[in-house]
């Protein structure tokens, strides 16, 4: 089996620039920022949502509410994925009805996580619009899901891994691609 | 009947002080001779006894053969056959059948059924009280005349001190022992196992040792009062052992038995709610186990008895509280005794034969228990070293409820001879198609 190869996709500065660009992109697609709310998907989507909210607040001068969503209980593969993954906290600070909710996640791949997030959000209320912002789109969709705001696109094969590191959890900001070279 | 010559076995007959390699000649249903180089009579069957032990056939003072009433789990025939497979040439049948053995017709029935079966001898034990109800004394004279060798209300204790007193006194007339199952029902009520840490952990109501000790003490006092002979069934506690030891020093006519499961297992066997570890009296703790073994060694406990108690598979396939008490034991007794008592040095082989043949026969005044020329040819020939694994599916008993399935034991019966006929040979297989439960 050929050795796996680790590539640095975004270093710390590129990471920050990308986030900044994403924030502007979200604003551009949200004409009225008042009803804006960011919902980060556990885990690293939550940290990214916090950062984006801060960036948006700087641009608009107003606080952007942000929440966290754990989609474990809505996964379509709970049967298969055991031993049961631990469920993280979910909390939404505001009522979603009529709002423009942006789902924030670190990596978009098959699209199943987003599907689970949409189901879960539906149990909380009815936003006027839901947008999707992801730091990395690695292709490989299994469901008809698309991101409205993408930080970086990188084509990958099924055996590859895309790893996102955030200062708050991992001590550094970076995105790395591990080329698998074939399934173990 | 062809004569049998058993050649070169170690003949072990502690009742007559014999322990030597010798030939054993059985003719006409009797022991003809014991000695070196006995001649082979015409037409005799020659059995090779080299490396084997020949002893008087074992006598079990305590077995439940379930007939009449529960022929689905055992009959006198299958029980007698199982006894033979275990090396027993005689087994005593407890009276808690349905109907109870409390009259001469019932006793006669058992004698007849046993004769028809023709394996181990079956001696009926009559009830102490009519219907075992604990109220009215049964007619001991009638029972003994019909063939009963003792009386007991086993399954239950003799209900009151007054009843026990009159039973002991009345039994003296016929010189039979009163066998008591010692349990104070107000202390044991609802209990399913020994009361201790294990029962606390399992959440099961326990039967305290005192339940047995209290009645043992009662019966000893009554034996002193009446001069009667009380035989304590299935002793299980260190306290009972101490009481019996003391009573014997005073010269009272008390005797006692212990079962193989009580000298082998503790209440730890109940873990996981295994109903094959549920019996009455219950399995107790290591201190009791040690006391029981010591008592067998020093003779405080006179003999080993199986308390063979067959139960249907469906009955034992139940929640622990609801399962019946009791385990079978005829076919594992010798193996357990050799492995658990002789091998570790608690008993010598001679003492084992004494506890399984000579003493039980003496307690119930039965013929047998010894090999004397002119006496009945009841012999067990066994290999004390051969290892085997307990497989209940190969039992001759109709029932399978044993806690010893899969256990490795030492000691296999080669031949059991009753009245000069071989009634069991190692390698025999049970052939009855209608086995209980499976």
């Amino acid at each position, binding site marked *: 089996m050929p050795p796996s190869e680790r590539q640095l996709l975004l270093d710390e500065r590129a990471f920050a620039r990308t986030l900044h660009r994403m924030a502007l992109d979200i604003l551009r697609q949200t004409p009225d920022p008042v009803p804006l709310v960011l919902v980060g998907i556990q885990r690293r989507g939550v940290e990214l949502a916090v950062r984006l909210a801060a960036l948006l607040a700087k641009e608009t001068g107003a606080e952007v509410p942000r929440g966290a969503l*754990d989609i*474990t*209980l*809505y*996964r379509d*593969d*709970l*049967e*298969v*994925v*055991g*031993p*049961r*993954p*631990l*469920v*993280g*906290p*979910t*909390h939404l600070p505001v009522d979603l009805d009529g709002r423009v909710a942006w789902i924030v*996640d*670190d*990596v*978009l*791949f*098959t699209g*199943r*996580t987003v599907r689970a997030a949409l*189901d*879960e959000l539906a*149990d*909380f*209320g009815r936003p006027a619009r839901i947008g999707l912002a992801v730091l990395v789109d*690695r292709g490989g969709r299994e469901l008809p899901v698309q991101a409205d705001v993408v930080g970086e696109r990188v084509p990958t094969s*099924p*055996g590859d*891994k*895309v790893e996102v590191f955030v200062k708050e959890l991992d001590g550094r900001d970076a995105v790395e691609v591990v080329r698998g070279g074939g*399934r*173990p | 009947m062809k004569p049998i010559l058993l050649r070169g076995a170690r003949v072990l007959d502690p009742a007559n002080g014999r322990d030597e390699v010798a030939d054993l000649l059985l003719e006409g249903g009797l022991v003809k001779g014991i000695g070196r180089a006995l001649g082979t009579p015409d037409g005799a069957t020659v059995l090779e006894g080299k490396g084997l032990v020949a002893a008087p056939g074992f006598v079990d003072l305590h077995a439940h053969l379930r007939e009449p009433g529960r022929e689905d789990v055992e009959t006198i025939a299958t029980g007698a056959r199982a006894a033979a497979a275990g090396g027993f040439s005689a087994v005593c049948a407890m009276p808690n059948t349905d109907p109870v053995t409390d009259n001469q017709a019932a006793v006669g029935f058992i004698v007849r059924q046993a004769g028809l079966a023709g394996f181990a001898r079956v001696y009926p034990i009559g009830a102490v009280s009519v219907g075992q109800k604990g109220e009215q004394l049964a007619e001991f004279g009638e029972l003994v005349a019909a063939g009963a060798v003792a009386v007991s209300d086993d399954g239950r204790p003799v209900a009151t001190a007054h009843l026990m007193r009159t039973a002991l006194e009345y039994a003296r007339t016929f010189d039979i022992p009163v066998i008591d199952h010692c349990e104070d029902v107000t202390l044991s009520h609802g209990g399913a196992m020994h009361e*201790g*840490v294990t*029962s*606390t*952990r*399992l*959440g*099961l*109501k*326990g039967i*305290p040792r005192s339940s047995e000790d209290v009645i043992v003490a009662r019966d000893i006092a009554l034996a002193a009062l009446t001069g009667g002979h009380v035989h304590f069934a299935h002793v299980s506690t260190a306290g009972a052992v101490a009481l019996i030891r003391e009573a014997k020093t005073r010269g009272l006519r008390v005797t006692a038995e212990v079962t193989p499961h009580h000298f082998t297992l503790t209440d730890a066997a109940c873990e*996981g*709610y295994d109903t094959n570890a549920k019996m009455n009296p219950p399995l107790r703790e290591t201190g009791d186990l040690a006391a029981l073994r010591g008592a067998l060694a020093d003779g405080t406990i006179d003999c080993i008895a199986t308390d063979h108690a067959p139960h249907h598979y*469906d009955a034992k*396939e*139940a*929640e*622990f*509280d*609801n399962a019946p008490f009791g385990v079978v034991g005829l076919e594992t007794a010798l193996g357990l005794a050799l492995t658990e008592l002789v091998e570790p040095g608690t008993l010598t082989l001679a003492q084992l034969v004494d506890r399984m043949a000579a003493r039980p026969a003496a307690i119930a005044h039965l013929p047998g228990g010894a090999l004397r020329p002119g006496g009945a040819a009841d012999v067990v020939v066994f290999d004390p070293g051969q290892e085997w694994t307990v497989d209940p599916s190969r039992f001759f008993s109709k029932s399978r409820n044993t806690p010893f399935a899969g256990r490795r034991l030492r000691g296999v019966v080669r031949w059991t001879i009753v009245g000069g006929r071989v009634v069991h040979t190692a390698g025999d297989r049970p052939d009855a198609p209608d086995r209980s439960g499976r």
Partner: protein
Amino acid sequence: MSGTLGKDLLGLEHLSGDQIRLILDTAEPFKEVSERAIKKVPALRGKTIVNLFFEASTRTRISFEFAEKRLSADTVNVAASGSSVVKGETLVDTARNLEAMRIDMVVMRHGSSGAAKFLADRIVSSVINAGDGKHEHPTQGLLDLLTIRDHRPIAGTKVCIVGDVLHSRVARSNIWGLLKLGAEVAVCGPASLLPLGIEALGVQVFRRVEEAIAWADVINVLRLQLERMQTGYIPSVREYYRVFGVTMERLERAPRDLLIMHPGPMNRGVEIDSRVADGPHSVILNQVTNGVAVRMAVLYLLAGGNPELAEAAKGTSDR
């Protein structure tokens, strides 16, 4: 740390501290689900769960039912009276018949100790013990642990169980759970209602409830069943209340943060005063809330997850 619990939850005695912590940690997010407007998540959608109750119990059964429904499972309630059990059908046959209808899990309460294990050994479906005789009531033990943990770390906390410990499966489960998580455990009650050899489990014994209250950080008060007098274990309810009742007077000198718990249902004025049950020390209602969350956690953890398939599926990072 993802220790599996195995097929069944029969008791806390044989679980490790890690496994117990896993269940408590898993219960936390389920508390949140019960606060939502839509109290439902699809995690157990399509699963069929049978509540098989051989002993009457409204509270525990309803708590399980809420837990099952909030996980979107389908629930069937079978009460022993009026079922084929009364007609003599054995426990095994009852369960096998249910299994033949392709159920996924059985939540069972039964009057015989060991009944849950008996069933679990004989059917393929997962079995959750909702109380077997006097043996264990693991979900009650777990929700009691969770309730304590809401207020203070369990390790080092002194918990005294007061009452009829001899006949209590709640007490046994509590003892196991608390010991495994490092609490100090004591029991208190009339000696005739304390099991023989209880100290051998690692538990202190207090003869008087005043001593227990002075010592403990948490008091878990057990219900006194009135049959105990009929069967001669204690002379009267009045005497029990006078000697062992947890009353406001007895709590007067207790520290502010002493917790009072009770598995319910309460005999007000027997083992516990109304003013105590409704007072500042009481966390009894929290126990009830936590009960649903803990039961959701247990159902969730037992309801599936095939480790072999999981290994195979690990290649795809599902995002």
